[in-house]
């Protein structure tokens, strides 16, 4: 009996340390979301539309869990292969800036929604996962908010965010494809960087 107990205890320890190292994708999404919402709920500036503060929050709390290179590759589509490593780097930087702003703008519209986390099925050896959540707002239809994640080394990284069936990443695909066919990869980099500068300067 005693040995069984110590075996159980040992097993718990192993499981416990494993989950501390690599948080399961659904647990990770929940933790990051709750961390961010805890701040937003107390921050009157963000609630009244201060995008700068929201961007700072997203950069510190959300960015480390996103794989922007993969996101950019998804948004660019087949043309991604044409890009040089240097172009890939610059594209990812610019696209990251735009996506962070989009995410931050969405946060400033937070009122009193609650987030429901749906159980996700991830097996031990899986390298890909989809975590489904639902934004519940009184008087309105709930909005589905899903994250696609992939396992990189020991940790999970988000590479797509899907709002009500709309991927914030692949929604750019036609636009990007057209720009690349008109002005090449460098044209797309310029388009993104001009847009970012324009938004940055227009900021209150």
């Amino acid at each position: 009996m005693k040995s069984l107990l110590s075996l159980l205890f040992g097993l718990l320890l192993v499981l416990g340390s494993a989950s501390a190292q690599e948080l399961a994708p659904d647990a990770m999404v929940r933790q990051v979301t709750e961390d961010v919402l805890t701040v937003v709920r107390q921050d009157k500036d963000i609630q009244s539309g201060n995008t700068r503060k929201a961007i700072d929050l997203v950069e510190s709390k959300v960015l480390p869990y996103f794989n922007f290179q993969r996101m950019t590759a998804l948004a660019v589509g087949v043309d991604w292969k044409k890009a040089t490593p240097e172009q890939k780097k610059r594209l990812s930087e610019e696209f990251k800036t735009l996506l962070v702003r989009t995410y931050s703008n969405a946060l400033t519209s937070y009122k009193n929604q609650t987030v429901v986390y749906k159980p996700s099925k991830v097996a031990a050896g899986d390298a890909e996962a989809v975590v489904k959540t639902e934004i519940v707002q009184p008087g309105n239809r709930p909005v589905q908010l899903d994250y696609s994640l992939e396992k990189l080394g020991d940790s999970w990284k988000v590479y797509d965010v899907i709002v009500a069936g709309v991927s914030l990443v692949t929604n750019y695909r036609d636009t990007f494809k057209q720009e690349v066919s008109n002005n090449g990869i460098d044209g797309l980099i310029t388009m993104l960087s001009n847009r970012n500068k324009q938004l940055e300067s227009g900021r209150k």
Partner: protein
Amino acid sequence: MKPSLSNSVSCLACAVAILAGSGCATTANNPKDPFEGFNRAMFAVNEGLDVIVKPVAQGYDAAAPLPVKVVIGNFFGNIWDAWTAVNNLLQGKAGQAVSDVGRVLINSTAGIGGAFDVASEVGLTKHSEDFGQTLGKWGIGDGPYFYWPIIGPRTTRDSFGWLADTYFDPVWRIDNIAWRNSLVATRYIDRRASLLPSDKVVEEAAFDKYDYIRDAYLQHRRSEIFDGALPHELSDDDSLR
């Protein structure tokens, strides 16, 4: 005057035929959007109308206390639930249809005429189905994309779906014209108000708002028709990493 389905259908069919005939006059470089010229013009019309509609929605949003907005949202949501039940039945999802009927019964009685969403609290999930989704489930393809004045984006199939939705909409069938119009207007403003938070997000995320809305609408509808169970399009796109 009640809307006549046959009139509206022939009117729409006529518009589609005229557009198809004048297809050569449009700048078609996106196969999903052969009538881009017309659509962009209508998009501009709507953006113009929104100069008036948006402040009204903002006023409503600011003036109405949250509980009032919730009651209004629930009231129209309850009417929509009944139509959702019909569409779920037409799509062969009997279980969901039964649950939707249960929702309407509970919310119309215990929820005092739909003012309170009691059914969600007892665990009956809210669904949302329209006739365009039903047609999609039956295998009818999107058809060309349209942007209509006031109504907004619809595929060809969903334009016909919208006609059916409107024809069977109990709000449009109210005999008292003053009542009917005020309910239609309230619902329109309530819907516009619910979109206010996404205005800035879309405005800043989009390189071209028209393109962004079109592509998002098409993705959204595809996901709705598959009830969100769309096989994730690109997760197997390993070559892109």
